[in-house]
């Protein structure tokens, strides 16, 4: 037995730990245990990748299988890290169609959470670019699933949080890129209305996202910096940074948080000061196009190893909701207002537009998504329960890959695909065998 947490370091649970040495070893390990769920690199924030009894690590399933430069199709074992894909294939002129906010995630994990990037409004989630996958079912049988083959199982597995079985291999589509740089422009939004308008306006851009200052109040409530970006062309590189190499290598992480900071370090004053500086710096540079390296552009926090320790030993929670377009403005306004009112310091808050997902219980749906992280204290957990009411009232839902604390009722209200998902799990025998702490908590 070992103690496991997600990236947020809250909650903590004991679990038995198994490691698969090869994909071929997975069926026996899985059929031999009940209450098991697969775990990739442990970057889900809450309890999604902690087995109810047994956690099956896929981190040694880290081999590439094949890459076809003509089609951009890449086949890998499920434990391959996005960082490895980027290191190998960006220099060769290929970029994954969708990447989340950290590169230290596995391909299996990205499929299981149907992760989204800054281009969801245009390109959909990670699952939309999965050509096919190999899934080990609860009793050990291995099936190939794709939009054409075993389609219902494929849809349930995209965003299915590992609850249909263990993904051991996948074929994904990459896009050709002409450089490893991003051409970014920044738009200053003075309040929440302006931020949402700017996101709608930049929907034509490949990537678009807003950093939102959750401590600004009154007339500045929801003030944001909106970033729109494209993969840069060689001409962009020549114009904006003459002499730069077209495919710069990955940036090694230089900073690290060597120990747990005292819980009080991130308080209203320090975060407010940070936000003020950050906003002013962004506002000063707004308008002019900038050339940004792919690594800090997509994965800014990966530059600081173990950044989750800044919240101290008690850990933190991520709160990410999506609200349908019609109800988004009032609901998001209320959420941001309540957080600002309590003076809760969210170090990182992000607002973006999402499109729909084909996954049965995948998170993404058309609307606006807000993500913020907060220390896991009793008063924050109470505040989040209140915010759940706002989200449910607006027809929204919470992201399972970030979740550590929502109630089964909130979950059920937000996910209309749940009955079909439960039915499929029963048919597979997964309801008795595949279970995470998350699935037990939410009665999936």
């Amino acid at each position: 037995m070992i103690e496991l947490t997600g990236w947020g370091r809250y909650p903590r649970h004991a679990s038995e730990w198994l490691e698969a040495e090869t994909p071929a070893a997975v069926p026996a390990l899985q059929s031999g245990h009940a209450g098991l769920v697969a775990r990739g690199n442990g970057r889900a924030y809450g309890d999604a990748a902690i087995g109810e009894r047994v956690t099956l690590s896929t981190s040694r399933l880290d081999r590439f299988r094949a890459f076809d430069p003509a089609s951009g199709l890449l086949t890998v074992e499920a434990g391959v890290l996005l960082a490895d894909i980027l290191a190998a294939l960006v220099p060769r002129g290929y970029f994954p169609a969708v990447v989340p906010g950290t590169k230290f995630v596995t391909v299996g994990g990205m499929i299981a959470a149907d992760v989204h990037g800054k281009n969801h409004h245009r390109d959909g989630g990670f699952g939309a670019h999965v050509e096919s996958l190999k899934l080990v079912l609860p009793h050990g049988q291995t099936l190939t699933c794709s939009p054409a083959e075993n389609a219902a199982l494929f849809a349930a597995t995209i965003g299915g949080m590992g609850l249909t079985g263990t993904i051991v291999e996948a074929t994904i589509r990459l896009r050709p890129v002409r450089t490893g740089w991003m051409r970014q422009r920044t738009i200053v939004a003075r309040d929440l209305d302006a931020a949402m308008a700017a996101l709608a306006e930049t929907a034509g851009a490949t990537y678009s996202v807003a950093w939102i200052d959750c401590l600004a109040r009154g007339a500045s409530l929801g003030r944001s910096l909106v970033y729109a970006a494209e993969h840069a062309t060689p001409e962009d590189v020549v114009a904006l940074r003459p002499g730069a190499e077209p495919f710069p290598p990955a940036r090694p992480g230089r900073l690290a948080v060597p120990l747990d900071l005292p819980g009080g370090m991130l308080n209203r004053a320090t975060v407010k000061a940070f936000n003020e500086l950050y906003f002013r710096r962004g506002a000063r540079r707004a308008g002019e196009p900038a050339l940004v390296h792919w690594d800090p552009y997509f994965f800014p926090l990966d530059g600081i190893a173990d950044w989750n320790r800044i919240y101290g030993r008690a850990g933190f929670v991520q709160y990410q909701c999506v609200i349908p377009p019609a109800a988004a403005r009032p609901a998001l306004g209320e959420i941001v207002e309540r957080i600002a009112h309590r003076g809760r310091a969210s170090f990182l808050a992000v607002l973006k537009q999402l499109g729909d997902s084909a996954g049965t219980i995948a998170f993404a749906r058309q609307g606006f998504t807000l993500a913020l992280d907060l220390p896991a204290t009793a008063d924050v957990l109470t505040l989040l329960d209140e915010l759940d009411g706002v989200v449910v009232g607006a027809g929204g839902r919470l992201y399972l890959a970030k979740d550590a604390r929502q109630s089964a009722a909130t979950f059920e209200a937000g996910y209309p695909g749940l009955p079909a998902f439960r039915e499929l799990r029963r048919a597979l025998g997964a309801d008795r065998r595949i279970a995470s702490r998350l699935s037990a908590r939410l009665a999936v």
Partner: protein
Amino acid sequence: MMQTRKTLLVLGGTSDIGRATALRYAAAGWRVLLTARDAEAGRRNADDIAARAGAEVSVHALDALNTGSFLSFVDGLPVLPDTVVSVVGELGDQARAEGDLEHAARVLRANFEGPALLLGVFAERFAARRSGTLVGVSSVAGDRGRGSNYVYGSAKAGFTAFLSGLRNRLAPTGVRVITVKPGFVRTRMTSAIKLPPLLTAEPSEVGTAIYAAAEGGGGDVIYVRGPWRIVMTVISLLPERVFKRLRL
């Protein structure tokens, strides 16, 4: 890009260090040959390297304990490689080796006889060609026999001495011989042992260090993590009357 593609042979291509070394060379544009006892495991690593680097990678069957097969193995290779890296070895179980002669013999053979004889065959061919680089992955455990692992350590000591002699002999021919002492490495072989972070390298670090030493013109004997040179120098210099009382 290189004008003529160079070829690397990794003896022990299914080990974590072998894999990491092969990846480093493939990323630099080399053709890679891997040996494996288990063909499927060899294939898995070869596909991985080929997909990552777009390199040509092939797998060649070899059992490093089957010395009788070595000459035909070398003759059967598609090309005489430019560089050969041996990561062949087996940690074994010291306690078991103390009573089980067969196990002890296996550890001695896997860490000394097999890799030494194999590199010896390539040494003759390289000397005749008057070019090539031989890299032997030995161990800090061979710097002085210690109570906790002297069966493994003595085999590595033999291998280190073999490489030293080979280097001495081949120096005039232009053939380079490099001894690598990785120290602790986070691999499957050591996954059950708790290791000190400062003295423990990732397999990729070892691969990078081997490539830098062999192709960049580094030293003849390399310790992957610097502090090991100091640690092992101190251990080697301890007088025997002190050393024999220590539990190392």
